[in-house]
């Protein structure tokens, strides 16, 4: 962004322009992620266009969120969403992470430290479930219900895991790449087949 040079020191964003970050900020961005990586073996740090991302093992998902809230002052979990990589041929996965079909993504924001961090967790197609973050962050309730509704990923420990956007009796999970609700078999007039 062209405005980076003019930024005030105190308002330096954690998610600022990708290229012009100075060395200090790069180190600063890393320290939370480094703490997470140190505390939870198997976690991989990745710098995604200047934003810190930690790839978390599925069984450490809840502990990482609790750690971020209790020890790193991450006051809000802004969003929980998921990605289906079924047909993603050019997918990038940092070394050390074994790719699965689904990714569950959570964005955390720390107001006191004015920093953001993103956690990503690989979820296999055969067993699509992950721990719910509703206990440390009650605000993810709707977000996790939406992911359950549209991707069919279950959140263990969620207080009310029901469909939220689709009707209760809907079959299938619309945001999965292999779900095609609009595809209806076409029958032609005078079709010879029975």
């Amino acid at each position, binding site marked *: *962004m*062209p*405005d980076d040079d*003019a*930024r*005030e020191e105190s*308002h330096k*964003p*954690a*998610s*600022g322009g*990708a*290229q012009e970050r100075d060395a200090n900020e790069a180190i600063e961005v890393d320290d939370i992620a480094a703490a997470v990586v140190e505390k939870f073996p198997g976690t991989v740090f990745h710098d*995604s*266009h*200047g*934003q810190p*991302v930690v790839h978390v093992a599925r069984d450490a998902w809840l502990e990482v969120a609790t750690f971020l809230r209790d020890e790193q002052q991450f*006051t*809000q*979990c*802004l*969003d929980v*969403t998921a*990605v*289906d*990589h079924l047909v*993603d*041929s*050019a*997918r*990038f996965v940092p070394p050390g992470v074994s790719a699965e079909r689904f990714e569950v*993504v959570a*964005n955390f*924001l720390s*107001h006191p430290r*004015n920093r*953001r961090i*993103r956690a990503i967790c690989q979820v296999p197609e055969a067993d699509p479930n992950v721990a719910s973050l*509703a*206990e440390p*962050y*009650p*605000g*993810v*309730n*709707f*977000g996790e219900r*939406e992911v359950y509704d*549209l991707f069919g990923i279950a959140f263990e420990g969620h*207080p*009310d895991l029901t*469909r*939220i*956007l*689709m*009707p209760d009796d809907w079959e299938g999970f*619309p*945001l999965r790449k292999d779900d095609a609700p609009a595809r209806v078999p076409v029958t032609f007039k005078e079709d010879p087949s029975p």
Partner: protein
Amino acid sequence: MSTTDLPDADRLGRQTDEGAQEMRPAGRDLVVTGMPWPEAEHEGDTMIINMGPQHPSTHGVLRLMMELDGETVLRVRPVIGYLHTGMEKTAEELTYVQGATNVTRMDYASPLTNELVFSMAVERLLDLEMPPRATWIRMLLVELNRMSSHLLFQATNGMDIGALSMMVYGWRDREETLRLLEAITGLRMNHNYIRPGGVAADLPDGWEEDTLKVCDTVERGVREYDELLTENPIWQERMVGVGPITTEDALALGATGPILRSTGFPWDLRKAQPYLVYDQVEFDVIYTENGDCFDRYRIRLYEILESIRIVKQCIEKMPPGDYRVQDRKVTPPPRARIDESMEALIHHFKLFTEGFKVPPGETYVAAESPRGEIGCYLVADGTGKPCRLHIRGPSFYNLQAAGPMAEGSLVADAVAIVSSVDPIMGEVDR
């Protein structure tokens, strides 16, 4: 009808309202607060009613299931999804050039903010740098949009509380803002003006005078509403102390924007993590201490004045130059070149049919929408269409706070509380 035709008691039980049936199981945890539903002491005296989805005060198609004890609301459960149109699925079928037309329809009261986060996300994946004029035009339009969105809130909020004349005034002044946006972008709403690579067109001739005129109209309007409502005892009776929420609760529930600021927490992304050129303009973050409906009303009212301040500085400081990036990967060749060069024509055609390719990667971009933090999570897979586009709608998460706010209040106050959350259902359901 003979008695044998009468349905048995079990059948009668099932014929009650569908929503009531859903709420019946005892001991189920409250959706958002994590507190259990009220215990059995209310059994027998309570009544479960549905407000919406077709109710004028629910801002579209929001349905609230409420358990009442007389006039007192015991618990509220928002039921959403009536406006779900699968826009995130649609986004996977649209090129990046077309994507802005899709996201702009999510939060239809502040469409430019949606376009902004989408465009910034695409630009971050492309590592594009915007020319200064494009950035300033974007900021000008987003602030004009904040004015129109908050004016809409003033109108609908007034209507919900019962100040019907306020509705007329609010719509009147909002229309002036929309007329200006129409003059600049070509459309009243759903502008598709902020696009990856800049904005769709340069500002029209005489935009400075038009903008100043609108600023004066709106400012006069805001002073008028302030005089009409803020000190009005009836207005205060309906608003002060209604639907209070604490900072801790607002943070825990994921609430952002005016709801969070009304609890004495001065958090505004424009100040805290400046994007565009918000660090080059002067404005104040409005926040109050009480966290009730009255404070949320006041914050939105005075934020209009702050937006006017920013707009006036945009007029002063608007730099000359390009309104879109001169990178032929995302910007078509100039119109004059198309007439004389076959290659330029092909280039233009390819850009608008196939679009441009975005290298694989993922990013999250946030901005302060009139309702709170709007975020765009974008995953690109190297093709011309996104692998996944997710919009973090502020209303979607803010709506979770409506239940805890309304608990213990009166039914009539529940209307005021939902109104003060200012949900836009297009963004909630996407």
